[in-house]
């Protein structure tokens, strides 16, 4: 039996589990793509893939991807609207995921520059939060 492979092991930053991620959005018609490299908070309460501020959506226009609007529930059960599109999580920390990456939903909403990495991504791994040590670890079985 093989031992779990460590994908990322990191100390908390500002009391939060934050990781550097790289996400690609590809237009399947012309194969043009754009990548977002952001800091993202690991959020086990977010059921989509990656939450990113709405202003970043303008970067999708040059590759011809038009996100679709849809209802979203924010923290505190506040209803709002957000734009959604499909993308690939390609890198987390220094770990490059096997191509094309993990298929995820990108949610464009709000103005916070820090992203959220949600369940569509982290449910692929074992994520351990060590509160007393202020660190977290992502492993792959």
């Amino acid at each position, binding site marked *: 039996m093989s031992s779990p492979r460590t994908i990322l092991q990191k100390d908390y930053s500002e009391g939060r589990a934050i990781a550097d991620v790289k996400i690609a959005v590809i237009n399947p018609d012309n194969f043009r793509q754009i990548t977002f490299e952001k800091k993202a908070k690991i959020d086990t309460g977010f059921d989509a893939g990656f939450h990113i501020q709405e202003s970043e959506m303008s970067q999708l226009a040059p590759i011809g991807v038009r996100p679709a*609007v*849809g*209802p979203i*529930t924010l923290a505190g059960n506040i209803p709002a609207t957000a734009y*959604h599109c499909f993308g690939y999580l390609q890198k987390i920390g220094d770990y490059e995921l096997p191509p094309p990456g993990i298929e995820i939903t990108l949610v464009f909403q709000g103005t916070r520059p820090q992203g959220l990495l949600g369940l*569509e991504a982290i449910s692929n791994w074992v994520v351990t939060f060590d509160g007393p040590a202020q660190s977290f670890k992502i492993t792959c079985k």
Partner: protein
Amino acid sequence: MALFEVTSRNEIIECELSFDQSIPNPERAPVTITTKIEQERIISRDDELKIENPFCRIKLPEFPIDRPWLPQQALTIIDKIRKGPVSEKQLLTLMDLVAEQATAHFQLQRGKFVASTFLGRIVEVSDTRVGLLKKIQNRTFTEEIFVWRAGFSSFSGRT
């Protein structure tokens, strides 16, 4: 012979109940139930298949055919969208109304991820959120579409 009404598929159908009088204790004998629709068909066979308005009995209680299938509130918001931007609250109300009507009309299973126009035309349905977005990413739509989840108030967000 007795005249009574039965309910079938939420429709009230008038029926005639006939007892066979040649049998002793006719109330215990097999009975024949003839609906008015059947009577018309029977009549029409004799009358060279002249059926009197066969569609008059089709009732669509939730979606009357003489009115738009979206509620007036939704149509009002759609009109506003055509003229200019609307508030987020109004957009959410419209999404709710369209999703509710479309879920009932197309009998969408709870949990399905759906992409549709604001007039309620379904453009894609998928079992997963990622699957739905992957399907629509390479398609161009003449109308604005929105994504939603059947039976849920939001497409994504806090669990």
